[in-house]
């Protein structure tokens, strides 16, 4: 990738689809590895994508995950149709979760999903409209080393 033109790809995630949970994040990880991004960048983007994907599976009806990659940055935009988040600040608090008892039994609902995204990104914005959906805009800067 010599130019600044972004490589773009879109992934669809269905709410409640636990059988395929993590599939989009794994595909994104493999793509970023193929681009020759540093292992750290790949891991950060994969964690952010995974947590965003799991939130859709647990809470939303469906979502589009847009991936855009340039030599400088990886950007993930997750646009869901779902209940939205009433209090974004509270949802960002580590340990806070609205997961059901069934989800918690499976090990979800640690209240670390959004904090993990924040920790693994360089810019993270959430816009949520209760009753309609949530949009996450996640940016991860690369160290500029892209080999292909």
């Amino acid at each position, binding site marked *: 990738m010599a130019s600044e033109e972004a490589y773009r790809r879109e992934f669809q995630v269905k709410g409640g689809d*636990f*059988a395929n*949970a*993590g*599939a989009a*994040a*794994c595909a994104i*990880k493999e793509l970023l590895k193929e681009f020759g991004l540093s*292992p750290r960048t790949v*891991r950060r983007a*994969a*964690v952010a994508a*995974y*947590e965003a994907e*799991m939130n859709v599976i647990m809470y939303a009806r469906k979502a589009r995950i847009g991936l855009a990659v340039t030599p400088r940055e990886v950007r993930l935009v997750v646009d869901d149709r779902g209940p939205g988040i009433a209090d974004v600040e509270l949802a960002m608090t580590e340990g806070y979760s609205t997961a059901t008892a069934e989800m918690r039994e*499976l*090990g*979800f*609902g*640690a*209240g*670390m*999903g959004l*904090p*993990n995204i924040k*920790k693994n990104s360089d810019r993270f914005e959430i816009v949520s409209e209760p009753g309609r959906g949530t949009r996450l805009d996640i940016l991860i800067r690369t160290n500029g080393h892209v080999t292909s």
Partner: protein
Amino acid sequence: MTLDELVSRLDLKVFTPGLPLDRPVRGGYASDLLSDVVGHARPDDLWLTMQVHPNIVAVAALKELAAVVLVNGRGPAPETLELAVREKVLLLGAGIGAFELAGRLYGLGLKGS
């Protein structure tokens, strides 16, 4: 320390057939909360857990963990095993609990983060 050394020294069960066990292990993390593992485990760690459902495979693959060790004699759900083989994620088993296993691993020189 490699996985096959740990398997023989701690008498661990190997659930995933055909995956190489010569992989080095750096340390370990014990938790049953997936996002806790996503947030805190490091690549090449062993992950000690009670969870046996397929979502553990995605977490292990994403975090590039050395292996998942199911504790207390638990075995993977059939769909977990199938997915693990496909994704080349090693699943091991221990007859003892997480606390006991972590202690023995620590005794062999493995550390947490």
